[in-house]
């Protein structure tokens, strides 16, 4: 049960019970007083009636005389005769207990109902041997009491309703800050870091809202700092890569010129020249990878999609790099709308990685919607598997491969850009398989630069 409903119920219950106790108390007090007042006045009247009885020789006349003395009915017996003031009562109407009391010569009273009407019956013997019974009607009294009871019950009901209403209102106004805070916490969790709570009043909720806001502000500042630091770091990487471009271009040209004249060099400078040429190639790869990753970070990469025959592209990729005799190609027939340069980059990086870490047999299989690059190398231990797409991640710190450490990260960025997915499964000792899932349902927007 919610706190709101609980609060409402408790308040209504408390008010209801109090109302019932008070109402019942007053009702029974009033009832008792009214009934005993009725008895008192009836007995006074009875005594007066008894006192005048001996003055009448004729009991019939006595009964008639009583008619003018008050609003009551009379039953009188004298000897074997019975005298009635009204046909609505008879001697049989008099309760037997009362008759016994009067028979013993005492004054008594008892309440009874005659034909649906309620009466207080008093009885007393008169000095001349007449036995007198008087029926005082109590219908009015009973009616008043029932009205009083209904009024009290209705009052309690209204009180309970009012209390419940007050409970709802109170609970809502009390709990509104809680509802607001939970909404705010949710939007904060969804990344709307500028979310704040209104601080109203100086109650506990006000203090709480203030603390919440301080927490949110601290969080926002911290995340802002982190983002700024990350942006600075990325900017720096991009700048470094960019600045390296010019000297690298010169280096590559110089290495290329040297490579054309290696055979004219004396042996002692020839080997260093060969190493230099190879290392310039490594440097080039690293700088190009850094530049590419920076372009991804800057969101500057775009897709130029066209019809691609995947098997032809994979074959050309492998041939262009001189991997023909080391890589087995399987599958055919897959045509997709995609960016061929990016596909080539992904395939080249995956095969390069497989050749570097994968041992003797590397195969590229083209499936229905996917490209699989499989090797039979030592595999990747499971604790490293989740990290292989991270930048510069090396599963084995002691192993310094020929790669830049960015190949798989770049492959994955490209895969995401193409709307595909790049996944890896590996079993130590069994080899590793990278799977590139290509999107098929939605072809990428055609990079057709033509407006005509």
């Amino acid at each position, binding site marked *: 049960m919610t706190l709101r409903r609980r609060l409402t119920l408790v308040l209504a219950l408390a008010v209801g019970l109090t109302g019932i106790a008070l109402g019942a108390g007053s009702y029974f007090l009033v009832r008792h007083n009214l009934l005993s007042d009725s008895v008192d006045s009836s007995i006074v009247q009875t005594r007066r009636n008894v006192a005048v009885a001996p003055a009448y020789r004729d009991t019939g006349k006595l009964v008639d005389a009583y008619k003018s003395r008050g609003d009551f009915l009379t039953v009188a017996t004298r000897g074997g005769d019975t005298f009635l003031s009204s046909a609505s009562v008879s001697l049989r109407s008099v309760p037997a207990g009362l008759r016994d009391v009067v028979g013993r010569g005492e004054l008594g009273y008892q309440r009874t109902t005659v034909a649906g009407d309620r009466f207080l019956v008093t009885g007393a013997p008169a000095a001349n041997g007449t036995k007198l019974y008087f029926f005082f009607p109590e219908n009015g009294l009973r009616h008043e009491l029932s009205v009083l009871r209904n009024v009290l019950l209705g009052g309690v009901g209204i009180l309970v309703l009012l209390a419940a209403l007050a409970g709802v209102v109170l609970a809502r106004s009390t709990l509104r800050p809680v509802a607001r805070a939970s909404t705010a916490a949710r939007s904060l969790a969804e990344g709307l870091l500028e979310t704040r709570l209104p601080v109203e009043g100086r109650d506990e909720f006000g203090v709480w809202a203030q603390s919440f806001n301080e927490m949110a502000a601290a969080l926002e500042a911290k995340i802002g700092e982190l983002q700024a630091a990350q942006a600075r770091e990325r900017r720096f990487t*991009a700048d470094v*890569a*960019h600045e390296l*471009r*010019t*000297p*690298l*271009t*010169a280096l*590559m*040209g*110089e290495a*290329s*010129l040297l490579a*054309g004249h290696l055979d004219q060099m004396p042996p002692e400078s020839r080997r260093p020249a060969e190493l230099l040429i190879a290392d310039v190639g490594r440097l*080039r790869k690293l*700088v*190009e990878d850094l*530049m590419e990753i*920076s*372009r991804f970070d800057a969101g*500057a990469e*775009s897709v*130029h999609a*066209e*019809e691609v025959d995947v098997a032809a592209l994979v074959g*050309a990729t492998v041939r*262009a790099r001189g991997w023909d005799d080391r890589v087995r190609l399987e599958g055919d027939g897959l045509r997709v709308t995609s960016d*061929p*340069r990016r596909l*080539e980059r992904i395939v080249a990086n995956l095969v390069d990685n497989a050749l570097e870490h994968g041992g003797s047999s590397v195969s590229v299989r083209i499936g229905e919607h996917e490209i699989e690059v499989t090797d039979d190398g030592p595999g990747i231990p499971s604790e490293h598997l989740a990290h292989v797409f991270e930048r510069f991640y090396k599963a084995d710190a002691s192993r310094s491969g020929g790669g830049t450490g960015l190949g798989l990260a770049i492959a994955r960025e490209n895969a995401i850009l193409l709307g595909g997915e790049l996944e890896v499964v590996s079993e130590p000792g069994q080899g590793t398989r990278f799977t590139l899932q290509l999107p098929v349902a939605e072809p990428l927007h*055609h*990079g*057709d*630069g*033509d407006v*005509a």
Partner: protein
Amino acid sequence: MDEHVLLVEDDPSIREVATLGLEQSGLRVTAVGDGREGLDRFRQGGVDLVVLDVMLPSLGGFEVLREIRHDSQVPIVMLTARSELHDVVVGLELGADDYVTKPFELPELVARVKAVLRRAAPAGDGATINVAGVEIDPDGFTARKRGEELQLTATEFRLLLELARRPKQVFTRELLLELVWSYDYLGDSRLVDAAVQRLRAKLEDDPKQPVLIKTVRGVGYRFNAGS
């Protein structure tokens, strides 16, 4: 062959190494280090091809490109940064024939330069083509429309020639890259699109409603010989 290449590049090391590379492949090279100087040297004449860096002091590469294209159809190869994708598009729209991105391999530059020079040499392979009011003379390296000579760059001329030789055939961008630009593998299709735009601007009565060079959506282009 002794074609004369004007190299405009501000970095001294790249300038020197590129000069050496081009010279070793049998070309004559004049190398200068800023845009103003490059434009002045070009205007003295005798240049068969310009290799033009985009980032240049005193007068930017695009300015130089614009100035040269103002009155010359000389072949131009641009040097751009790959991180500045926009540069490639701007350069091609201004009329560059091809481009090489930094960092580049020297043989790649030499190959691009030679490919463009080959394009600019009279083909000597065929009779004059006369189709849809367009007259193309492969030997004379001239194209006329309704008797009026069109001022085409070597790339634009080759593109027109290839398309007009087989009217109605649909040419994919890859095929055109191979035939015109000598890319056998993964050329940039923007080269084709930009060259088609430039060719239409010179050839069509209304370049926005082309009737001679039609786009075939999602495939490529074809020459429309008319009905």
